[in-house]
């Protein structure tokens, strides 16, 4: 399979700290790739480098063959990145449906003057409702973010990213803060989306869900890549077990169980 997203030699330094040191991996077309690692491993920094919120000092990022590492965030998004952030950031003054509709109107917001020329939001509202239904929160369409619990807001965030019709969906800890049932449901939704053709990069702490749904794992530790491949094989690697499970003792039981 061709790599839809191809990352090579990405290094990010904050002051004297190496947040990412020469990290590279490929996300094949149609993959559901889990990007994992202990706290501070550089997962979110990698995500931010891909979306352009952080400028790497070195490295190359190809999306569908096009170099995007020097483009501003909005251009990368328009080339096919969809992003759901770790900390939910809904637009507070808009309802859940309006939040998603704004993203769904990406073709209309591409140019300010074209955006001024059109006012109809019917098609985008319709699409927003479909997507909210898809992530299982159709009932929250007309609610304001302040009225919704975290589990709902996480899914608004995912629906908003989906509304961009992304080639690659980047999900940064979409399951964090959700209870077991909610997490399993949202993980199942991600699997469904992936089956329907969306390539997904899932950054997650919830190892049992990652092991359950991902078919490919990339493991980071201290800004370096220490594992890349089939989940069972990667998790059996002593170096990964050491770094990952040594740093998060309480996760070891779950991981071992799921990998077995």
């Amino acid at each position, binding site marked *: 399979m061709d790599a839809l997203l191809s990352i090579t030699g990405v290094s990010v330094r904050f002051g004297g700290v190496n947040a990412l040191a020469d990290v590279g991996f490929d996300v094949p077309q149609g993959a559901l790739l889990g990007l994992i690692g202990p706290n501070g491993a550089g997962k979110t920094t990698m995500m931010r480098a891909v979306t352009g919120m952080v400028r790497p000092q070195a490295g190359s990022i190809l999306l569908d063959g096009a170099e995007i590492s020097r483009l501003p965030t909005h251009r990368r998004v328009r080339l096919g990145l969809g992003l759901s952030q770790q900390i939910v950031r809904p637009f507070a003054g808009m309802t859940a449906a309006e939040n998603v509709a704004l993203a769904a109107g990406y073709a*209309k917001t591409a140019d300010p003057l074209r955006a001024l020329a059109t006012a109809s939001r019917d098609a985008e509202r319709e699409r927003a409702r479909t997507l909210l239904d898809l992530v299982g929160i159709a009932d929250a369409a007309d609610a304001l973010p302040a009225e919704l619990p975290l589990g709902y807001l996480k899914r608004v965030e995912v629906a908003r990213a989906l509304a961009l019709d992304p080639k690659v969906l980047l999900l940064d800890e979409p399951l964090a803060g959700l209870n077991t049932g909610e997490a399993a449901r949202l993980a199942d939704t991600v699997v469904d989306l992936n089956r329907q053709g969306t390539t997904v990069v899932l950054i997650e702490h919830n190892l049992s869900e990652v092991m359950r749904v991902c078919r490919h794992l990339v493991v980071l530790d201290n800004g370096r890549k220490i594992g890349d491949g089939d989940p069972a094989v990667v998790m059996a690697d002593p170096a990964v077990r050491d770094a990952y499970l040594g740093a998060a003792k309480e996760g070891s039981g779950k991981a071992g169980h799921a990998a077995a």
Partner: protein
Amino acid sequence: MYEISLLTVMSFSVIFALSLNLITGFCGQISLGHAAFYGIGAYSAALFTTDGGSFWLALPLAMAVAGFFGFIVGFASLRVRHDFLAITTMGVGFLFTGFVRQQDFLGGEEGIAGIPDPGIGQIPYMLLCAALAAAVIAFSLYLKRSWMGHAFDAIATDEDTARTLGIDVARYKLTAFVFGTALAGLAGALFAHYVKFVEVESFDFIESISVLAMVIVGGIGSVWGVVVAAAFLSVLPLLLQVFADFKLLIYGVLLFSVMYFAPGGIDSLMRMLWRRISGRRTAG
């Protein structure tokens, strides 16, 4: 006639306040130097017509010149945010007054007198200003509903997240500055040809704060709230001598009370009142 004067002043004040509402209310970019663009419009229109130019051409010219400078100042909003943008735009305001004071071709401290009358009579001039104000109100209402308004709303709330939805924040901000400052220029041209005399004091920091007060008292981002506040606050000094004498003090008290008791301004007070009334009606 006195009422005609009041309506004329009201009309260009509404345009001026809505022009700032577009930048600060819709797009969330604070400006403490907006009077500079009102001034740029007034001065360029005044120079043009005192030099024999047509009043009708002076209006689009004032918009173009103010919009051009607005475009340049808009770049500041791409570099700095929030309180830093407030200080930067305040600096722009001082730069304008400082520059004008030193320039002989702008009349320096004396200003420009003898601006020719548009020659259409007092009532038609009032009607022209009112029609333009109505057009700016309609434009504001439409813009708010359009996809541009939707994107402005996102940028005003959280510009980093707006970027992750593919919104080119820089171009939207520059557009807001160009539109807003061009409309301020239009208001300035109308003002100049109403008073027929421009001097730098009319466009100083106090004027920038006054127009910001109209937006805040009306309700930041609310079209009708700002229209009511601008219409009311612009003619109060003409109606009541007390208000003219204590303008700054009254603005200060007004700003403080709105921020403290009703941060949503007139707009939110009207909505609250409306809910009470309609609530009582359905209850009864």
